[in-house]
């Protein structure tokens, strides 16, 4: 075999490896996009339903104001402040629902029980979405660290994804059977 044949073989092997890796990275970036959209949607949903509960007039004014301002802060926060803003909403919900009367008051009202169900779903889905998002970040970062990916700049100009860290321990009192 002439020398150029072996060169060709080597080229094909390298090219298909690079192609497969690039494919894999694309797929991970798509999964990351979806996971990020899901996390964003669950967080927005949580602050929206909290705001609606605060505005419903079913709870006492102090609790309503506490929840409304925390929900507003969470929704208005962005960038680096978002983790903090969303964690504070978690804390406010936990504080408000420590008293079992709060959930009981909502449950006694036909529109309140609907809101309570929605809040229950939202506070349990936020930790799910966040865990799935962070898992996607970890998997993406692992592939982006490969030498081939770094040398050939397969990730393009997409900045490396960041983990989303927040307190998302759901308020126990919200849980409805």
């Amino acid at each position, binding site marked *: 075999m002439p020398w150029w044949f072996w060169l060709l073989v080597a080229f094909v092997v390298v090219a298909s490896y690079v192609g497969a890796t690039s494919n894999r990275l694309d797929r991970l970036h798509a999964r990351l996009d*979806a996971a990020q959209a899901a996390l964003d949607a669950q967080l927005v949903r949580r602050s929206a339903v909290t705001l609606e509960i605060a505005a419903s007039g079913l709870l006492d004014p102090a609790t309503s104001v506490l929840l409304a301002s925390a929900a507003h802060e969470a929704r208005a926060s962005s960038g680096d402040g978002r983790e903090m803003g969303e964690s504070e909403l978690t804390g406010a919900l936990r504080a408000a629902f420590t008293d079992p009367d709060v959930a009981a008051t909502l449950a006694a009202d036909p529109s309140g029980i609907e809101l309570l169900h929605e809040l229950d779903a939202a506070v349990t889905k936020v930790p799910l979405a966040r865990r799935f998002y962070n898992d996607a970040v970890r998997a993406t970062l692992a592939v982006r660290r490969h030498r081939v990916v770094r040398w050939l700049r397969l990730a393009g100009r997409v900045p490396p994804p960041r983990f989303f860290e927040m307190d998302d321990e759901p308020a126990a009192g919200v849980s409805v059977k």
Partner: protein
Amino acid sequence: MKVGLVCPYTWDVPGGVQAHVHDLATALIALGHDVSVITPADDDAPLPPYVVSAGRAVPVPYNGSVARLAFGVLSLGRVRRWLREGSFDVVHVHEPAAPSLSLLATWAADVPIIATFHTSVSRSRAMAAAYSILQTALEKISGRIAVSEAARRTLVEHLGGDAVLIPNGVQVSNFATARPLPDWPGDGGAIGFLGRIDEPRKGFPLLLEAFQLMAEQRPGLRLLVAGPGDADDVHKLLPAELRSRVRVLGLVSDAEKARMLRSVDLFVAPNTGGESFGIVLLEAMAAQTPVLASDLDAFRVVLDDGEAGALFATGDAVALAEAAGALLDDRDRRARLAASGARRALDYDWSTVARDIIRVYETVAHSSVRAATLPYQGR
């Protein structure tokens, strides 16, 4: 929601994963979802209407034992066709690290994938060897579920990443309505045990020791034992005068198990270690039978720190005999434990567990819809 479930092991062979998939499918259908299950099955095996066969599984050595798995081009083709015809909103694979249908479905699916990890092993040679091959397929999974803390730890150690914890469910109504066996529990008191007789970690020898301590003062006390094992082997361990007071049922069906749990005054779980969850306790609690268990961490969690069942010092036969004796003498306390246990079991009812799993589906199914309709945004 259109859900596709993938079971990697032969449907007609009893096993934990198969039972889980069956119960989950039933619960999802009861909640109004559109469910299809694909699984290996023998050609003539009777299958429920929602189950699609992917053909026969082949017995092969895998991970230290012989497992019946489905793999190869034929299986992949069937999985592909099932995915195409089902057009699912979400595909939920079970045990995707095993070289069977779940891995093939993960490979072939282009809809959001949820995976449940069941196994907990301290070291898996198979997983370690296949790590890099698995990694590419497992990267496609959008949400991972582990059925126990031990299963979650196995996943984190072997494959990296994380999972949400959603425990196994119990079909509470099946246990709550079962009829006790004829002539049980009787007037002299009856204690129940369920599990492998020949596995020391299940604590059966400990229970026999405690039973002998109690038997002298309680001439009517009887012991009902269910689980793989031979009656003669049990009787060999006992003095002749006690043999008639220990009844061994051997391996029982699910229906017989429910009846057995309803037939005793007290269910004892004397395990000495290695339990990751304690589904047996929940089954006894669902049967409204008071539970006495060793104070292992996993049991402590299920029994709500002694609120939903009594605890004794692990491995201590004297403590077991004393605690069991006190409970047998106190009808009111037994009734209270049975009631709080039954309430606790409802937290693990399949309807509750299925609701948690649906929330996981909604989290990922929703996200792909969003991602498809939103214009691309740079991160």
